[in-house]
């Protein structure tokens, strides 16, 4: 069964990005949020992106209208009834996500997939909010979704094989490259990338080199696009610190994932990276 209509819950950066990706792939999208304001902003942002794509010749005007035209917005969860899949991109609060899935149980038909874009919570635990956890799956997009091709498809302990296969297909239909992952904290990327930041921070804390030299060696010695400190500044030190913290705790304080005191101090002082004008580097200069 090919999915023709998908719902997206939450119109923040991830939600609106996912909606755009789906609409660009020709799917009808119903974008839900509790706030009309947020929905308005999301649509005008997608609209701006499409106009830019037309200006740059990556898309015809007709195609751009098509993308925007395929997205409808609502503040009523009941409007998601026709969706073959609902992708939840609400704030990272377990109770909120569980409640949304419980409510969706009685709205969408039984074959519909309920996917969560969580990056830090357990898919299994979110699925426990639904009466039909076999259809609950993780579908983890990367920020910004229109640019990054990867989607982690996460099967929870109760997720059915059919749900996983259908989600892998949907990701491909959306033009993405899916990888299949077990439900462990951080999945693949957020977990395997931890040492990149944490060892960088340890090297700095031990005074082996300054942050700029560490970045230079990782970039120039290893052909990474960015060193750990530049990348932390781009991601946001608060976000990056929270990710380390969450993986560390989810693995029962496994020492490999122990967060950095240096980074904590930076976060406490509000030096969060590019978004505040200063992180490890100064962006106001």
């Amino acid at each position, binding site marked *: 069964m090919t999915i023709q209509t998908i719902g997206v819950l939450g119109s923040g950066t991830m939600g609106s990005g996912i909606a755009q990706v789906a609409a660009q792939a020709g799917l009808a999208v119903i974008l839900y949020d509790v706030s009309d304001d947020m929905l308005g902003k999301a649509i005008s942002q997608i609209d701006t992106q499409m106009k830019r794509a037309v200006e740059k010749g990556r898309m015809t005007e007709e195609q751009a209208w098509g993308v925007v035209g395929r997205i409808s917005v609502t503040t009523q969860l009941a409007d998601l009834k026709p969706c073959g899949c609902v992708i939840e991109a609400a704030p990272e609060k377990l109770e909120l996500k569980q409640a949304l899935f419980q409510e969706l149980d009685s709205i969408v038909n039984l074959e519909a997939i309920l996917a969560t874009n969580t990056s830090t919570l357990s898919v299994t635990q979110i699925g426990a909010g639904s009466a039909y956890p076999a259809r609950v799956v993780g579908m983890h997009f990367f920020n910004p979704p229109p640019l990054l091709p990867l989607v982690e498809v996460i099967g929870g302990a109760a997720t059915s094989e059919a749900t996983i296969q259908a989600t892998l297909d949907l990701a491909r239909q959306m033009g993405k490259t899916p990888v299949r992952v077990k439900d462990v904290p951080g999945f693949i990327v957020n977990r395997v990338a931890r040492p990149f930041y944490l060892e960088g921070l340890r090297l700095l804390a031990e005074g082996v080199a300054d942050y700029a030299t560490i970045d*230079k060696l990782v970039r120039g010695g290893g052909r990474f696009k960015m060193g750990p400190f530049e990348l932390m500044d781009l991601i946001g030190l608060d976000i990056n610190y929270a990710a380390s913290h969450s993986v560390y705790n989810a693995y029962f304080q496994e020492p490999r994932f122990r967060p950095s005191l240096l980074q904590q101090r930076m976060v406490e002082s509000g030096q969060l990276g590019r978004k505040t004008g200063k992180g490890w580097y100064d962006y106001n200069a």
Partner: protein
Amino acid sequence: MSNILIIGDSPLAAEMAALAGQAGHTALAYLFNQHGPESSPLANIPLWLQETADSLDLIVEAVVSSRLLKQHTIQRLSDAFVGANEPILTAALNASVAEVSQWTAHPANVVGWAALPPLGDAEVIEVAASIRSDPVMVSRAQEFLASLGKEPALVNDSVGGVLPRVVANLVNEAAFALMEGVASAEDIDQAMKLGTNYPHGPLAWGDQIGLDQIVGIMAALGESYGPDRYRAAPLLNRLVQAGMWGKRAGKGFYDYPIE
């Protein structure tokens, strides 16, 4: 142009020899794949190597899979070759420069270097001085790396250096994830390349660096900082024990056709 002796069990040694040759140096390479110190490759120094003893300008060592083997190699090198004038560049991947300096008769001559395969891709190579390194020797080490077209970047003496320590831990974490069945090797590599823009998948990179080398780096970090944080993934140990060191052995996380 200088006469350089390059010795080691790391793919870095072969890559360094090729680079030195391209740069116009006379590069003598003594490469081996020995695992374990029982049979020190320098127990009997080959005749051709003995004959070069007096003409060497600089020695590069890259023995990374075993610290004991590194010690034997450095000691034999020191006894047989090193006079007061030749810098010894030791790969700081699995020992501190200070420690290695104590294995020679000329501690001031020992300078650290650190990099990872593929060395051809590296624009910058780290150089580490120990507390005992002679600044003249450090300068000569930097000049040598610059002659290869690489920018030397000075860092403090620390086991594993900067880049090898970061990357060895990435490979190790990916090995843990593979061992736990989180995803297939291909999917783990794909995810890291696409999700966070890494230049290589960590498992394929581990195969290229050499899994014995990764285990060597992790073991040295464990000895230095305590094993809690730097425990090698059991899967990594098992692959190395089985002789599956990666690309060089034809088998590692992936299979490689032997040409």
